[in-house]
């Protein structure tokens, strides 16, 4: 039941974002539009960086950090080739190798 409420809540905040402009009309004010442009960058970075760098609530900047190694490889591949799936694949391979070698 709680799970169902969670799913309905998630849908209830997602659908209006998609449908609002199309159903109510109007426009997004230019300032808000500009702010929205930075939402994916800020949110995804805020989720990803702690996931990569934090280990037992401490910042772990080390070659032994498999997540860091994999994330760096993904970032470099996507930066150079603009190919998302190759980047993810390369990062996953490096991450897996790191875990096997350093386990």
């Amino acid at each position, binding site marked *: 039941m709680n799970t169902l409420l*969670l799913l309905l809540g998630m849908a209830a905040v997602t659908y209006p974002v998609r449908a609002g402009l199309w159903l109510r009309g109007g426009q997004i004010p*230019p300032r808000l539009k500009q702010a929205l442009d930075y939402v994916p960058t800020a949110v995804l*970075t805020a989720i*990803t960086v702690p996931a990569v760098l934090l280990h037992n609530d401490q910042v772990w900047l080390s070659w032994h950090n498999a997540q860091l190694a994999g*994330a760096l490889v993904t970032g470099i591949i*996507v930066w150079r080739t603009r190919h998302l799936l190759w980047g993810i694949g390369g990062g996953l391979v490096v991450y897996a190798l790191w875990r096997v070698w350093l386990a």
Partner: protein
Amino acid sequence: MHCVGAKSEVSVRMRNMTAITSSPAQPAPNLHPAGFWQGARDTLPMLIGAAPFGIIYGTLAISHGLPVWATLLMSALVYGGASQFIAVTLLAAGTSAPIIIATTFIVNLRHALYSAALLPAVSALPRSWRAVMAWFLTDETFAIVFHKLDSGEPVRLARFYMGSALAMFGNWLFWTSTGIVLGQSVPGIANWGLEFAMVATFVGIVVPLLKDRSHVAAALAAAAVAIVARGLPFKLGLMAAALVGITVGVLLAPKAQASVEAQP
């Protein structure tokens, strides 16, 4: 600008369409507008690209203890890969529902930009169609439909859109189910570090977004705050990091861009 052009283009083509249908003797292969199947076919590369994400989401959700029905229902109700990944991860970390819902809202806010970009084209369609179409507005369908409108080729917008949307939606449910089966049948898959697939995905999405100084600064600010504020309760560190990142980005945004967007 492109959109306004695309809109008039679409309405003109739609009128032509009626003319063509009412007089079938007139062959006009070049004017044959793209419909449902063309929309689905144009989406094919996206269908393949979404497969690994669907599988990983399904596997991750099951291995974190989300029931099968809820795993599938989330794909149908929320239908946004990034927000589903995060919700499952937060759920596994014992995060409360209001925080998960708030995070979902923030992660899916980008769809408002897509609806704004397509607004001039869809505003000619009946309201009830728009209500249905909006349910399926994802990164992929937006990209396919916007590209089609931008090309100026004739298109029956609602059919083309729904072709792309339903192909994408069915594809997402299918690969979610495949992930569910994997999560149930491969013992110990929860320890494989599948979360890293989400991390890699987000890194891959963010890197192309860092197209100027303001975006780099927004990312650095968000990262710094997310690390420093990690101890805050209720995942408030994430919210704070997002807000600070967005603010820094807006403050450093190129002036030219702002003035162009300010014009009607």
